[in-house]
């Protein structure tokens, strides 16, 4: 009944206005920038450990976890207090990680140790590791929580890990220097970006066969300059957004046809992108220009660039 009421309220009044907050990890400033989504203004900078990159919200969205590559740990940020309130072990050189849907565990790529560490959040300890290829980087977890995907940059593979047994299920060859991995909303596909080839490879998660490959062409830029990095899926499953690094673009991709619908010119070297809760706005974190770009997806235009610090890398949107 309560669910029905909520649903009705949403139907009548529409989703709540964008009272959202954007969090950006600045890897050269050792801060997380706090940006008000409605006014598109910088509110604060939270001091965190050294070289913050990967970030994720807790399941209750009250906590932000931040991977500190040079401090070999994950900082726990209380979003109400806007400060670091604790630390979790991560294994060496954490870059990217995911929160398991059960809310209890983190799966962390340890770039220097060729393994994935599993961290128990409540107990603040590492409860398992899985050996993967050389330089693990991108991480994704299926919505059912059963499968973790991890890319390894030098091995050029995506490793599928059984999240319970902590065993490798499969290792799939992808294009050179894979960065991000993302499951489709229905869980039937796995998308993997390649930095050096500038491609995204798509696998069927059931058969684990490659079902598509997306190449990105940016007018006036040679293939070495087009590199695929962060991937964000729209909630309706129809669209994927891919950050194209030194090409200074974000590509909007049709997930049915695997074709590029359009390119958005953003700041320099976008690493990662995130969608607002209402799916109307896309934010890119631009590493070389020290800003984030706000893309209005309804009007299909970049509406604002906001300086947030040095070396913006990860971007997460929370309440």
């Amino acid at each position, binding site marked *: 009944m309560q669910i029905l009421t909520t649903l009705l309220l949403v139907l009548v009044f529409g989703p709540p206005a964008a009272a959202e907050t954007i969090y950006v990890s600045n890897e050269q400033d050792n801060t997380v920038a706090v940006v008000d989504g409605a006014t598109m203004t910088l509110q604060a900078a939270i001091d965190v450990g050294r070289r913050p990159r990967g970030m994720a919200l807790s399941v209750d969205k009250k906590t932000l976890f931040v991977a500190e590559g040079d401090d070999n740990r994950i900082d726990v940020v209380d979003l109400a207090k806007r400060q670091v309130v604790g630390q979790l072990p991560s294994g060496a050189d954490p870059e990217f990680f995911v929160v398991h849907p059960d809310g209890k565990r983190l799966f962390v790529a340890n770039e220097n140790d060729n393994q994935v560490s599993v961290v128990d959040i409540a107990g603040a300890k590492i409860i398992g590791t899985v050996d993967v290829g*050389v330089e693990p980087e991108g991480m994704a977890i299926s919505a059912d929580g059963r499968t973790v995907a991890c890319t390894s940059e030098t*091995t*050029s593979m995506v490793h599928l890990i059984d999240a319970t047994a902590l065993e490798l299920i*499969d290792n*799939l*060859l992808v294009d050179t220097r894979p960065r991000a991995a993302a499951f489709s909303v229905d869980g039937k596909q796995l998308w993997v970006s390649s930095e*050096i080839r500038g491609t995204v490879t798509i696998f069927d998660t059931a058969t684990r066969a490659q079902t*598509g490959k997306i190449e990105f062409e940016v007018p006036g830029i040679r293939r*070495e300059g087009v590199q695929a990095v962060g991937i964000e899926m729209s909630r309706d499953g129809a669209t994927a957004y891919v950050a194209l690094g030194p090409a200074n673009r974000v590509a909007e991709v049709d997930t049915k046809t695997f074709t590029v619908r359009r390119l958005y010119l953003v700041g320099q070297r976008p690493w990662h992108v995130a969608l607002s809760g209402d799916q109307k706005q896309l934010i890119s974190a631009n590493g070389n220009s020290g800003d984030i770009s706000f893309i209005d997806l309804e009007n299909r235009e970049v509406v604002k660039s906001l300086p947030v610090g040095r070396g913006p890398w990860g971007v997460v949107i929370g309440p």
Partner: protein
Amino acid sequence: MAISNIQLGLLDLSRTRLALAFVGLLAIAVPAHAEPQTMVIGYLGEQRKLPLPLGPLDEAVTDDGLQGARLGIADDAGTGRFLGQQFRLQERVLKPGEAPAEAVNAFAAAGISFVVADLDAAQLLQASAAPGAERMTLFNSRDPDDSLRQENCRRNVLHTVPSRAMLADALAQYLVWKGWQHWFLLTGPHPDDLAMAAAFRRAAARFGAQITIDKPWTFRPANGRADTGHVTLQTEIPAATQVGDYDVLVVADEADEFGAYLDGRTALPRTVAGTQGLVATGWSAVDEEWGATQLQDRFHKLAGRWMLPSDYAAWLAVRSVGEAATRLHSLDPTAIAKYLRSDDFLLAGFKGQGLSFRPWDGQMRQPILIAGPRLLVSSSPQPGFLHQRTPLDTLGIDLEESACKF
């Protein structure tokens, strides 16, 4: 292997699916019964006279190059273990004065098709002409000599070490970008120094710098480590650099005999660049960008020292073979040799973009680091230096000026 003849990049979707399903099968099956195939890569080095350590922090290194090749094998094995491909290095170090023909012959007899040739130019040319070498690919990981990419180029040689022309062009672009266009070129007495100076002169002309003062270094190499050695240098260097005005002192001293004494002692307060000071190099321990931290850490763990340019060039050679084997799903040497030289080949070399071989002279295209003694200063090509094919081809000998005929 059933799919060894597949040309990647020309795959249609169904074959790709087939290939990938096969790969998946292999990865699961390998520990149980499938017999992995092995690629043996040769390493051919030579014993060298150790240079005199210039300062107390300098460490004598006897295994530079070799350790890079060893790390390349470990990295190749990273992907190989999932694909049923094993990699092994067969090492051979020539004694001083020993001709390379016998070693090449032994490699050929062992069925080796790819050799890291960590050799000086004369030895490299002998090795490339030795019986058996005609069926091999030799990777020049040591000698920057431009003639090896020009009139002395060889069909069976690829170059992973940057040429002098590439290093000079990279430095020139940075100096011109800085607006330091008037150079004082100071050249050592050895043939290598003269060759480097020639590359600097060529680079200056290409990118709009002027060598306003061009002088040979005529002093005897001093030993600054003598007690109160600095006193001599403090009078000697200002005298040697007492010239008209210039923006930057560009030094050509490959033997490292005097260049390091210049910085902080020149008559005019000017930056020193070239073979010492601000250096252009294929690799430097100071680099940690583009994911290089992980490569540097892996190397240090393996070798117990920092990675040198010759280590990096040897690593590139071994990784090139591994990358080709990965993309082809095959260890077939003919297919690998062909793929290395194709447009599709791209190696991830921790320099921010894919690396490939120039078809006209076999030189690996690569960004060149501009490094200070403790930190990375820049990386060339610099913004604004354009090229009709790729900005990487603004460094070194371009297609239109190539004298190489295979």
